[in-house]
């Protein structure tokens, strides 16, 4: 489990980082397609949180999300040669992720209406995860509806642009924007009211 501190970085650094990574991600995929599996590590470091975040936001279950994370990278590796360079590597990766999630939902035929207590159980799976992270994720999963949740995760965690989110989720851009701002508002309210951490 990565130490949370490792991933927390200075704010401006974080902003910049999010913007510059598409090129590096694409490079990794192209290299992997050529059989250079050394690049799997780089790719993993760059994108595992995004994949996991998306999977978690769809499946709302951390065990399942972990499976998806694993299977997704296997698929990336075996399917890298099918990636056509177009500057949108995340779209390709997210499509794989989403399809795996859909498959999983079908297999498990689980519904996503899971009672609150079960959320706790899912998220509390690993003790390694620091408490405030767990709480934060829990808020995301409980307070937001499906669309809001996916949009928030895609944008905040992966740095995915609203326009690309609109394409990916097949929702009109204005809708994405308004859902996003509503989602943030909801979360802010929860956080500041909740009082468990600073606002």
């Amino acid at each position, binding site marked *: 489990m990565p130490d*949370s501190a490792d991933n927390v970085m200075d704010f401006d650094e*974080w902003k910049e980082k999010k913007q510059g990574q598409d090129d590096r991600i694409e*490079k990794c995929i192209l290299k992997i397609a050529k059989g250079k*599996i050394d690049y799997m590590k780089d790719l993993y470091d760059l994108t595992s949180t995004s994949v996991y975040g998306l999977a978690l936001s769809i499946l709302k279950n951390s065990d399942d999300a*972990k499976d998806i994370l694993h299977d997704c990278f296997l698929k990336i*590796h075996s399917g890298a040669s099918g990636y056509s360079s177009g500057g949108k590597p995340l779209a390709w990766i997210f499509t794989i992720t989403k399809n795996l999630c859909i498959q999983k939902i079908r297999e498990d035929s689980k519904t996503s209406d899971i009672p609150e207590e079960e959320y706790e159980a899912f998220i509390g799976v690993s003790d390694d995860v*620091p408490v405030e992270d767990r709480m934060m*994720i829990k808020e995301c999963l409980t307070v937001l509806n499906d669309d809001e949740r996916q949009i928030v995760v895609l944008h*905040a965690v992966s740095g995915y642009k609203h326009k690309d989110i609109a394409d990916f989720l097949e929702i009109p851009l204005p809708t994405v924007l308004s859902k996003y701002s509503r989602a943030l508002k909801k979360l802010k309210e929860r*956080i500041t009211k909740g009082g468990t951490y600073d606002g």
Partner: protein
Amino acid sequence: MTDEQLEKRISDAFAGAVPDVFDEIMEDIQKENAGKGEKTSPKKRSAKRNLIKIITAIAIAAAVILTVIGVSASRADSVLAATVSLDVNPGIEICVNKKHKVLSVDPTTDDAREIIGDMDFKGTSLDVTVNALVGAMLSKGYLSDMANSILISVDSADSKEAVDLQNRLLGEINAFLENDDYKAAILSQTISDNAELKKLAEDYGITIGKAQLINDIISKTGRYSFGDLVALSINELNLLENSGPEHLTSIGKASDKAYIGNEKAKEIAAGNAGVAKESMSDLKVEMEYEDSVMIYEVDFRAGDTKYEYDINAITGAIIKTEKETNRPAQNDSENGSGSRSGSQGQSGGSSGSSGSSGSTSSGSSGNGQSSSGSSGNTQKPAQEASKPAATQPATQPATQPATQKATQAPKPAKKSPIGAAKAKSIAFGHAGVSGGQVKEFDIDLDDVEYEISFKAGKYEYDYEIDAYSGKIISVDKEYDD
């Protein structure tokens, strides 16, 4: 809080929660590459325990390393007398006492835990234990007819004891497998118990036997670094290990059923070169491990030309080709001396080409050929070496025509890489840029090549440069806005 602060908080939360499954992912990829055949999905792996059935009806050759590490003999029954390690890819260490009764069984790798499961071997005899573990490896798919190499390594202060044990186990495993009509490849070696090997083994989580095998491969072939080979299974290492070092004896043939096979590799190479298989001489096919892929290296001559192919061992895709037109004199199999009179080039190690003296063939006199035609004519006068023409060495007889190119030695082993600075200047030189114009420079030494990327002017460049020859393998230039 601002929106952005909230976003960062969310991002941090997920970053803190994401599990690190990278190792499992890579393990599965390695297994898939080795042709294990099944897609393993993490939650759905279920242990199949069919031990008894497996032991009595072994359908598959096993790949196991037995490392017997002996310790000086002693009286008490519970004192360690020897350690036997089972290595396929999972590694297991079995400690036995003087009477070869098991004291403990320990996994040295994580997947070995799955094999041991909850079997308790204490007090059991070594043979039964080994059988049970081999059986477990079979039922869980770590051993198969696609991976059949066994390495027995014996290390003991008491060398007689070690040799005895080794031979006994060798004999037993052989008989055990022959019983089911299976071809195992058994390697056995003696280990000198040294601290450095031990540390390497511990650091990488493998047994000493495997560590020694890896070291041997490295020193024999002059390629690979230790870390490269650690993830390979014993079967793959066996395939790379073409003829054992002095203290490694080898029986049987490592399974290459996961791969296309030497014959197919030959065919692919021959087909691509446009030569008939029969006209291939000095043919050498070897398995190598390059860029994390098992490959066949197919080297041969046909006519004047020397060919070298790197072929993906699983897919059959041609990864690399090299071609050179040689003086026929350079054949290793001959008394290759530089002083050749004009009449006869080759003494023709394989098929004699004496009949070809005096026949002209695109201006190269005295070209013997090992092709059955032995007509001495090169059907491909236009054949150019892929390497630039080097100057003729002084010993060449004057009759050799100028069109001939000097032979270059096959891949130099044990040469050192050209260095980052040199690679950088090659790349810049080719791109026609100076250091000052370059931004975002990145260089990576990736085993046999330098990967260099940089931006200059409006473009982004990606170079791959052979680390030993400095040759530019690939160039990528993209408009960068």
